[in-house]
């Protein structure tokens, strides 16, 4: 990242420390997934509702995991989620 060019666009003169922290923020934000992967419906929204997850997985003949939630409820979740 050419910080000097960025400073010119932003019309700011910056200290080395600020420059370093800007690079860190950009590095952190760089981990955003490509649009085709992640944050899509599948990854962002596994809805742990017993009925929906179970029915859907059963229909697709997927492996179903069973676990007890912290609230003591039995949940069934397709492994694909």
């Amino acid at each position, binding site marked *: 990242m050419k910080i000097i060019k960025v400073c010119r666009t*932003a*019309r700011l*003169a910056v200290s080395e420390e600020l420059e370093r922290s800007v690079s860190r923020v950009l590095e952190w*934000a760089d981990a*955003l*997934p490509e649009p085709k992967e992640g*944050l899509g419906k599948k*990854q*962002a929204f596994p809805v*742990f509702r017993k009925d929906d997850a179970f029915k859907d997985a059963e229909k697709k003949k997927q492996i179903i995991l069973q676990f007890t939630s912290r609230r003591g409820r039995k949940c069934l979740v397709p492994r694909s989620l």
Partner: protein
Amino acid sequence: MSCSKKLMKTRDILLMDKEDLEDRIHYQLELAKRAEEYHPFVWTSEPDKVLGPSIGIKDTIAVKGAPMTCCSRILQGHVPVYDATAYARVKEHTTLLGKTSCDSFACGSSGATSDFGVTRNAHDPLRVPGGSSGGSATALALGLVDLALGTDTFGSVRAPASFSGVVGLRPSYGLVSRKGLVDLCMSMDTIGPMARDVYGVAYLLSMIAGGKGDLTVSITQQKDYTSQLEKPLAHKHVLLLKEGFEDPVDPRIARLVEKEADKINAETSEISLSLEQVVKAYYVVMSAEFASSMQRYDGIRYGKSKDGKTFEDQVVSTRTQFLSEEVKRRILVGAAVTMAEYKEKYYSRAKKAIERFKQSLKTTLQSTDFIVCPTMPCVPWKIGEIQDPLKEYASDLLTGIASAAGLPAISVPCGTVQGLPIGLQIIGKDDESVLRVAREYEKERDKE
């Protein structure tokens, strides 16, 4: 006249009907002392008559004739020539006590990074009040005002409400006019009501929401949100957000909110969302929009100015000297992510991520009514304790859901951890039902 003296004078007018003079003076002195110690105001007014409940307005909202600095030195001396639509709606029914402090240009989650002094948490003066609308929350928690207006982009009303033990609502995006509000991220900014209880918030929302008249106002009808407030919702389904009850959320907060959520009389189940990615996407989009809107602060049109050999020198030295570190950091990040060579890598990807999140959340809410989780993942931190911006950004983990999707969300106090207030967050599909379920919870909570 000092801030506290002006406040004393104001309270003198407000308390004219109190009979006991000695008590009154003691009360005024106590309030003035608190205002001086906790610094919730950046400017206080001297009203000559009482029009209704007292109100504090965040310093990023324009009030005609009152200084508006956005708590930044670059705007020192700037006085707006018109009222923000939200304030114009309330000014006939409330008594303005002052402009409340906030993070400089609303850039922060602590509420303690104003250029004009540190605002303190009303429950522990060594801790932050939550941000960015920290002054509004502290003024309410100390009893200095009855109502307050804040602004919420990614949690700036709900975070201070949670940290300070008051109620704060982020209305649906577009419900309240943004005219007269200084932008942080215009695609997510909202003006939100704050009060000490849900009724106060509903009352204030009824005044500021809806109506038409300018380009930045929604075209929805005005509505009285207090009329149905006491009626419980007949059938409701609540989803508990899984990430709100596990690491990195403080386990003491998770246990408390989980217990309190049971008081909402509803059928419950759980969902899981990729929140960290949403926070990253938000910081990319916000920085890009913020850098663009901050271009106008060049020392020529508004506020203070520094000398320079050329026009460009003058602009650069003004901005460099008078903008805070966090504001500069966000401008630089915004300028970087919108550069032609990085646009696809950051900005476009982040916009798409937020759009997909929004659509998915709307689909999820078709089969449920509310999502419940803690408002903040931690207790208010000590002033100066967090120096790393990434750590502060991470505290927006749970408030970002509603912001990214443009949905209404409310923070209601639900108890304390370590003697510090904790907020329970309710996210819903429409403002009225969110207020009603919050009121229902508030009544259940107060039974104990």
